[in-house]
């Protein structure tokens, strides 16, 4: 009840997600809930409606926060993909050099054998 009253002057849209959640949790506290339900039909109705509006605002605001965060990280995705491609390419490059060195070694051994046979 106390939290509800303290934010009653403020429009719900002006509250931050944190303020909204704090208000909701205050209203959900057993002592506040019990007091409201015992305070008469009109008071209780108003209390419940406010709680419902606050919960709706919490959902909206959290959704908006997630959306913003997602947009921010998604804007980095092309760089991430480019990085992955570069790293895969670099690994392949090392493997190519390795294979080339091994193959050259084998060829040289064969050349040596050929020279020996020719001599």
């Amino acid at each position, binding site marked *: 009840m106390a939290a509800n009253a303290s934010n009653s002057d403020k429009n719900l849209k002006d509250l931050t997600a944190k303020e909204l*959640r704090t208000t909701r949790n205050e209203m959900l*506290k057993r002592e506040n809930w019990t007091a409201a339900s015992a305070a008469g039909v009109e008071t209780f109705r108003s209390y419940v409606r406010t709680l*419902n509006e606050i*919960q709706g605002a919490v959902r909206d605001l959290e959704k908006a926060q997630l959306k913003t965060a997602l947009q921010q990280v998604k804007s980095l*995705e092309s760089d991430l993909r480019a990085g992955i491609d570069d790293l895969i390419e670099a690994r392949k490059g090392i493997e190519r050099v390795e294979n080339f060195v091994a193959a050259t*070694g084998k060829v040289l051994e064969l050349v*040596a054998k050929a020279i020996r046979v020719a001599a």
Partner: protein
Amino acid sequence: MKKYFRLRAILFVLVTVLVVQACTTAQRVHQGSEVAEEGIELTRILPAFYDAYYTSAIRADSVTLQLVRQEPGITTTRLREQLNEANTDLLQTGKLIGEMKDHAGLLREYFEAIQALTDDEVGEDFGSSTKQLIEGMEAVREELPDRVGSDFAAKKAGEPTGNFVVVALKNKALQRELELHGATIERELELQETLLDTIGESMTSNHEAWVSAGLEIPLFESYESKKQKLSRSWIDNRVELLTQPDDVAITEDAKDAMKGLRLAWRELAGGGPRKSTMVRLRDRVDATEKLVGTLAN
């Protein structure tokens, strides 16, 4: 004779410098692999963390709706509208969570690519390949009629030279990657840290809501109502109420782990992460991994 000793001294200095350089380079590559390993682990946990957040949001919303349902004189139509509205909102949130999980998968792929490059298995045969190459060269030289010098040193140096070359190549590729995308990854980790902070705050609050409205209020209402006998589920609810995990600590661990990863990444770009940074990072990632399971339940 004097010239010979001078030459040996110069060679000794050169070899020492090369060995030191090789050790430093190898250490950096190894550090890159370690940071990547923690990055993989943490990004693997992220989806479970997002799921836990989503579950906590649904729970908090449900217990609130459960109480809102008690509004005096509320019509069935209004109740249905309220539930539909809440479901639509939460389904949209769920979709965003799905996209966040996809993104975490991409970030994990990035760290896997770093690990695939810096891993010891990559180029592990390079040393023997180089040895083979040098032996091949020696074999050819031995067959030539006017061969000069000893082949012993060249043969012995083959394998270490190859190993050094592969580490140097890995280090060069890692350095290039850090220069190209290091700042982007740091920004990404910074955003993830902020997101975990936001989600963590919400989860803590959702947990409080769940405990108050989902457990405590029904528990007291049932207990205070003398009309009916207390059911078995009342005891179960009481056990649940009194054995709730410490959600605040769990979300702090996840945020700290992401912060640790960002710090280690930054230090890697600057030459190599400090030992203390890596120890703390490992500790935070392990703690998050252990507790995230508890959080999901």
